């Protein structure tokens, strides 16, 4: 999904925020939102990838309103998708908590996703060997999935070099949509800044961890 979350290389966001060493939660509601997001994954019968995708689906202007605000709206997306709570219920409850009268709508029907889990966490063992080796030149495929993906726009259709083979992992593009774990090898692929941004950019290298289906041999 080419959503607002895919900000790598975008311009216009202004200066970075200062490196202040504040507490993890600037306000008490942020801590609650944090915990609630993690608990919502379980309550919704979802997974980490579906939660990330639920945050990506927060409308762009709201996404930009702040980290725990989007985190919380992502949690609500998950709960709505699974029929655990409806948006109308949240609105009505918020109104009642604000001292207004609001009829509480009926609970929605549960429709939790079902996807077999290969165990805790996201690392998996694969029988097949990795398709690419360290030192190999690879190219990111011309993919543009409309669902969840961990192949950001700024590295698409680019040629780089494998610098590490990482453990196989649950494939986010599949698991986020409850289509199965479909585990895949992950490669740390290094690109030159020139390959990413053309002539005239700062000289540096960028490494990013890409799932095997994102890659093809560079020819």
């Amino acid at each position, binding site marked *: 999904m080419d959503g607002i*979350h*895919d*900000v*790598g*290389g*975008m*311009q216009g*966001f202004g200066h*970075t*925020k200062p*490196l*202040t*060493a*504040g507490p993890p939660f600037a306000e008490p*509601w942020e*801590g*609650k*939102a*944090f*915990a*609630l997001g*993690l*608990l919502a994954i379980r*309550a919704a019968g979802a997974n980490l990838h579906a939660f*990330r995708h639920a*945050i990506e*689906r927060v409308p762009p202007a709201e996404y930009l309103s*702040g*980290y725990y*605000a989007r985190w*919380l709206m992502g949690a*609500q997306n998950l*709960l709505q998708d699974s029929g*655990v*709570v409806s*948006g109308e219920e*949240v609105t009505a*409850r*918020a109104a009642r*908590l*604000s001292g207004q009268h609001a009829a509480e709508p009926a609970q929605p029907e549960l429709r939790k996703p079902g996807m077999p889990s290969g165990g805790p*966490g*996201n*690392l998996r063992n694969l029988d097949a060997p990795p398709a690419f080796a360290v030192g190999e030149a690879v190219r990111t495929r011309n993919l543009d999935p409309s669902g969840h993906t*961990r192949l*950001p726009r700024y590295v698409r259709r680019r040629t780089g070099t494998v610098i590490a083979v*990482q453990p196989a992992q649950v494939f986010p593009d599949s698991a986020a949509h409850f289509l199965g774990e479909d585990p895949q090898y*992950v490669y740390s692929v*290094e690109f030159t800044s020139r390959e*990413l*941004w053309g002539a005239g950019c*700062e000289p*540096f*290298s*960028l*490494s*990013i*961890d*890409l*799932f095997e289906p994102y890659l093809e041999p560079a020819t």
Partner: protein
Amino acid sequence: MTAAQEHLDPALRVEALASLLTERGLIDPATVENFIKTYEKSVGPMNGAKVVARAWTDPQYRVRLLADGTAAIAELGFKGPQGEHIVVLENTPSVHHVVVCTLCSCYPWPVLGLPPSWYKDPAYRSRVVREPRMVLAEFGLMLADDVQVKVFDSSSEVRYMVLPERPDGTGHLSEDELAALVTRDAMVGVAAVSAP
């Protein structure tokens, strides 16, 4: 695709959601409090700082840490969510690493705790993969022209932590004293560690 939601103040939204979920027995307020306390008190950059100080003072630990970050970090008791596979990147006089997650805000929780505000902000996420020297300079870290800059975008479940350079003039410090010098920012790669 986009899920429409009523506009609500997030502080009110969290109360409404918590109230509904508690009522349905789906969350326990004590668990919520426990999550908050954990990341406010026990899990934070003081963990990573211990890892760094150990690597600076124990050459064999340093070798293990760079070979298998997850295992070496677990030796000090640090593991948990967002730490399934941690890779440690060693900064040297000639190579500087800096870590980002452009797509969300992935971060090695067991060693660094929850990400700070600047790490989650679109300005950092968008710019550090395009003009890292400029971003580092904005943060006050000026790198010599001959230092190679390597940016790591954490796009899978691999998590990255930077092993910063040990500052000169700290040969006399104990491991605990060294740990006290190590900042979160240095372990993300946006600052250097300074001698006291």
